[in-house]
């Protein structure tokens, strides 16, 4: 189905409640969701016989061997389809009818999937795993070779297109690039938060904000500023992209303690403040129409996972900010909380850090792509990608590898 056009809300209509689909996932289903949130299509594969399991098993159903999660082929053939027109569940009753089917996967097992309208029994499909509004993984079956937009993908993603977006810190290079990217992606409105407006962009050596961006005063360290923004625009924001971050060098023992305080104030208290003032409104509109509030993107330095030498103070603030974001993931559902890990930025604060570094545009492109697919954890730049990969494998080793180098 085509993506429904954005319509103005009937102000007299009662808002659809942000209900969640039923979810009581097993540990295996949680693992599936975790990998799906990273953009992977992976299932448990038997280390002995190679049989692929779905639904997630704990032991191989073919040979009783041990299982390990591996990326598998995502093709399949539709075996049967139905259109569900009744449901006992309040979330799905808001969304009937639901087109679902059984797909025989090329990888072996069968899966129930939400079906694209052209995915009829006997046809070839490509499966994609998406997170639903309860953050559990669901399969979408799209006709093989399908490209472009579709209502099914739209409902299971957080596309910037036609959405109203807040970029919290357009004074920073990340935020400025993100605001421009949101405009390019067809966002309906882009609110560009600017703190300290008594200093002009010119004075900071920054180019002016791109066309189509609406600058708004927003200082996450200022309670009143955040409250005023939330009061004025809280009802109009559907995607929050929190780029407010001040990565400054400084070790724990020798760094400037005011830097740590500033980082905490901006990145930790500021994030919490924004969530407190804006989170409820965001959540409340989490099922509002075809373009509901849908995402909170949190830019996080990879130092949050393993502190780089010489950046210990900032790493502490980022670790705290990451922890906040992880709590928000549960608290803000159905709002998708996407953590974006960053390597050292290509900016004036990382002059002595050798490349590869993250260009603000690369960050903006990655966020736009992640939102499109509704991912919940990505890394931007080789440094962050490499660290995240090792951290997922063995966090304590990754930390030791990072802190041991000098």
């Amino acid at each position, binding site marked *: 189905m085509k993506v429904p056009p954005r319509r103005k809300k009937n102000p007299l209509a009662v808002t659809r409640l942000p209900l969640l689909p039923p979810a*009581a996932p*097993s540990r295996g289903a949680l693992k599936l969701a975790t990998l799906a949130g990273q953009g992977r299509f992976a299932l448990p594969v038997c280390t002995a016989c190679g049989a692929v399991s779905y*639904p997630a098993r704990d032991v191989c159903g073919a040979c009783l061997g041990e299982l390990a999660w591996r990326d598998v082929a995502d093709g399949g053939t539709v075996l*049967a389809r*139905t259109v569900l027109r*009744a*449901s006992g*569940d309040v979330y799905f009753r808001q969304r009937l009818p*639901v087109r679902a089917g059984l797909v025989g996967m090329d990888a072996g097992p069968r899966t129930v999937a939400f079906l694209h309208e052209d995915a009829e029994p006997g046809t070839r499909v490509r499966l994609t795993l998406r997170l639903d509004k309860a953050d*559990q993984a669901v399969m979408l079956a799209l006709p093989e070779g399908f490209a472009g937009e579709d209502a099914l993908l739209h409902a299971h993603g957080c596309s910037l297109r036609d959405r109203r977006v807040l970029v919290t810190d357009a004074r920073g290079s990340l935020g400025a690039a993100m605001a421009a990217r949101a405009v390019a992606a067809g966002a309906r409105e882009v609110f560009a938060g600017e703190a300290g407006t008594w200093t002009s962009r010119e004075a900071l050596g920054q180019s002016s904000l791109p066309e189509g961006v609406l600058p708004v005063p927003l200082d996450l360290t200022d309670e009143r500023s955040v409250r005023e923004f939330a009061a004025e625009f809280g009802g109009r924001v559907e995607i929050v992209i929190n780029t407010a971050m001040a990565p400054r060098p400084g070790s724990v023992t020798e760094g400037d303690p005011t830097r740590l305080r500033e980082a905490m104030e901006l990145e930790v208290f500021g994030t919490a403040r924004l969530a407190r003032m804006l989170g409820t409104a965001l959540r409340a509109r989490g099922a509002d129409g075809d373009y509901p509030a849908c995402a909170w993107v949190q830019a996080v330095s990879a130092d949050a996972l393993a502190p780089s030498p010489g950046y210990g103070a900032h790493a502490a603030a980022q670790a705290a900010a990451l922890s906040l974001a992880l709590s928000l993931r549960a608290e803000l559902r159905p709002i998708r909380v996407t953590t974006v890990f960053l390597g050292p930025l290509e900016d004036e604060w990382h002059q002595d850090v050798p490349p590869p570094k993250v260009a603000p545009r690369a960050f903006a492109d990655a966020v736009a792509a992640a939102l499109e697919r509704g991912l919940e954890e990505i890394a931007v730049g080789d440094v962050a990608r490499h660290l995240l990969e090792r951290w997922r494998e063995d966090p304590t080793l990754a930390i030791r590898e990072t802190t041991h180098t000098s």
Partner: protein
Amino acid sequence: MRRAGYDGVVLACPITVPYARHSARPAPWWIGRALDGVLRAAGMQKPQLDGFACSSFTLGTDSAVAITQHLGISPRWLDHVPMGGASGLVALRRAARAVQAGDADAVAVVAGDTNAPDSFRRLVSGFSRFSTDAVYPYGAGGPNLSFALITDAYMRRFGARREDFGRICVAQRANALAYPYALQKKPLGMADYLAARPIADPLVLFDCVMPCAGAEAFLVLREADARAARLRYVHLASAIERHNAFPEDDVQLRGGWAADAHELWAMAGTPADAVDIVETYDDYPVIVMLQFEGLGFCAPGEAPSFLRGKDLTCSGDMPHNTSGGQLSVGQAGAAGGHLGIVEAIRQLTGAALGVQVAKASSAVVSGFGMINYDRGLCSAAAVLTA
């Protein structure tokens, strides 16, 4: 090794606690009333009952063990059979061996469930791990979704039409009109069936059972004891069960009966077409077709044409689900897996509560249970003879 027969094992004292759409009474009340009915019918006192098998979805964390204390019984043989639509037949098989071997003298096989307005939704939402992980998030349709997919695939593969399923539902409703405990009492015609509200394509309202409260029970004992107590009884001629049959099949277009039917009929000593009554597990009519095929009445995929030539009412040439089945009586949880056995005992002992099938001396009862992910895992069947 050749399986031993069930010689000397009989079933008696069929009990139904009248069904209710919703009930405030918890499951132990339904189980207790059913057990009381069995004991009264058998002329037994509680201390004489040394075997008890229990099935229920609505006992919460309790099992048959807790029920012994709740009901004040002290059996020396106890079973809890969480197999839904196959629970009655599985319990029967186990009880038969127990009384045959003398581990118990008499086993009361009881199933009872209560039903509150929201209890079915809660039951299906947490039915099994695979269902919760991989079916329920796709619309929370409960078993409707899985059976809609099976029905869709069956229709495409074998060319079945909606009328073929409707014929089963319409005939059962006719049977139910005479059965006192059936909750669906409105006559149903083919036009009504075809015009019914769609639930999950191709399933419509009349393809789906109505969850309700109720209980079913019967007694398994040795023939000599039954005769001594002057009970009317039927023989257990044969029984089979199979779980997770044909896991390699893409879609469940056959149940476990296909794996064991030859043994069922060999042990019973009769061919399928010789039985007088067929009691299938009818949670959805497509499963009825799989049973006719799997039990050998016809070849795979031929149930639609086979049934087109049959009259499935009590007075017809193939009396089927003679009390109306779950589609018309209601699905009282695990009691649905006992309904066919209880009805067959009544019919074969000449004690039908509805229309008595004339000259009925043998019946095949089959069960199907536990939709887990994309298919029902338990299949069972038994042949009962007068």
